[in-house]
């Protein structure tokens, strides 16, 4: 999940800090850096699924850039009239939502076969997301090591008890300006938080500071241009889309883990696969197959539907739509307001291998919705 930085969240019974009590307990109990469940797949098949290819990502990136430039051109042309609104609506989602999946896939290095293509798109998408490319590479590595392990995972989007106001505000992108932008400024000033130091190795920290300085410089230049031209237009095109185009990223991304179990070592129980419409899947680069992605992060986005067909017998039934998923999770989230140990228990099909209960019992979840 693309998440707001950990230090942006309020206090709760669980200690989501990466240097606190929950972190210590996760390390002690073996939940940190644990061995996770994987569905058995023959090596030959897995190799085929993992194969890299430049074709799909080049096609999608050419379309992506063309749509971004085209919608930006329309927005500039019609600037000052109501006709610019639909162009900004498209531009905003491409800038602020689809860049999340590009950031994600290129960060894994699986989108393109050619390494430098992954790196270039990763840097651009990180900027669009207001994310420090160095910091977030490491935070995402931690997210895959310790997915939804409290005190270890730096990218838990909705903590318990859930802050519904914050979740609602995240659709507007306003939290990015409130948390991510100040984070970039702090880092550009040479300061990393204790949580950030917990997952960024010492040898990488100066790179993180340098990256933050570049991003801040671009935002400063954009603000200067807006002042010079005495127009909001530069800010509507750079940075501003975080406010009006983030909604799709949050709509799809929130569903990745919300309401499901924490402190388990089986992605089938803490991660959700949701069937989505083709447009959302293109924007999201198939990350709706999220259990599959977490179980096998080496499989490129374009091969996830094939992977899903191969292993779905071993996974909980996917949600048939985003609407279905939100309808399912809403009462769980409401219940968590009063009782934060409550969660939605994913039922494994009869054909699936059972979960290793010995890990589950360590954290003693007090109640579950069936």
């Amino acid at each position, binding site marked *: 999940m693309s998440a707001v930085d950990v230090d942006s969240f309020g206090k709760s019974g669980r200690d989501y800090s990466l240097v606190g009590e929950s972190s210590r307990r996760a390390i002690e109990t073996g939940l940190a*850096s644990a061995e996770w469940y994987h569905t058995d797949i023959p090596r030959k098949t*897995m*190799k085929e699924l*993992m*194969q*890299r290819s430049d074709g799909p990502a080049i096609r999608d990136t050419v379309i992506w850039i063309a749509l971004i430039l085209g919608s930006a051109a329309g927005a500039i042309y019609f600037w000052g009239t109501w006709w610019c609104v639909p162009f900004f609506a498209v531009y905003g989602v491409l800038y602020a939502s689809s860049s999340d999946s590009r950031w994600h896939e290129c960060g*894994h*290095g*699986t989108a393109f*076969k050619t390494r430098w293509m992954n790196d270039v798109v990763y840097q651009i998408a990180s900027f669009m997301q207001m994310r420090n490319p*160095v910091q977030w*590479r*490491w935070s995402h*590595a931690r997210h*895959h*090591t310790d997915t939804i392990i409290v005190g270890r995972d730096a990218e838990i989007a909705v903590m318990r008890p859930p802050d519904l106001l914050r979740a609602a505000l995240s659709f507007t992108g306003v939290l990015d300006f409130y948390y991510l932008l100040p984070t970039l400024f702090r880092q550009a000033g040479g300061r990393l938080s204790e949580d950030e130091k917990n997952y960024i*190795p010492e*040898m*990488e920290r100066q790179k993180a500071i340098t990256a933050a300085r570049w991003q801040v410089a671009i935002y400063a230049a954009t603000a200067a241009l807006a002042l010079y031209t005495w127009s909001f237009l530069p800010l509507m095109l750079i940075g501003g889309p975080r406010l009006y185009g983030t909604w799709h990223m949050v709509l799809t991304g929130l569903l990745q883990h919300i309401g499901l179990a924490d402190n388990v070592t089986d992605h089938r129980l803490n991660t959700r696969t949701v069937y989505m419409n083709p447009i959302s899947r293109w924007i999201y680069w198939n990350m709706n197959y999220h259990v599959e992605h977490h179980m*096998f*992060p*080496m499989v490129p986005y374009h091969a996830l539907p094939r992977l899903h067909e191969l292993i779905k017998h071993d996974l909980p039934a996917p949600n048939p739509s985003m609407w279905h998923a939100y309808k399912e999770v809403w009462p769980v989230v409401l219940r968590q307001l009063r009782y934060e140990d409550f969660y939605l228990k994913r039922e494994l099909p009869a054909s699936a291998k059972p979960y290793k209960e010995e890990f589950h019992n360590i954290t003693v979840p007090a109640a579950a919705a069936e």
Partner: protein
Amino acid sequence: MTDWIEACAADDVDEEDVIRFDHEGRTFAIYRSPDDEYFATDGLCTHEKVHLADGLVMDDIIECPKHNGRFNYKTGAAKGAPVCVNLKTYPVKVEAGMVMIQLS
């Protein structure tokens, strides 16, 4: 003192692939390059102790299956975040159809 250990049959490893070899409590990765040469490294990624034998071999690169960290398996060199520490490599020879690795 050095020991040559029989790791596997040469045919056990597909071209441009890797397999796992465990020996006396240690784990290794045995590679067969696209040029039909054999190489050996420690079996676990230096980042998070994940078995590299589940990863993907591309030319002279092994990519870790968990975080996509990349190493040159011929030299052990780490090729960038999230791997920062090089992988230990071991001499390899093929004799009578068997892949042997030298453990020092």
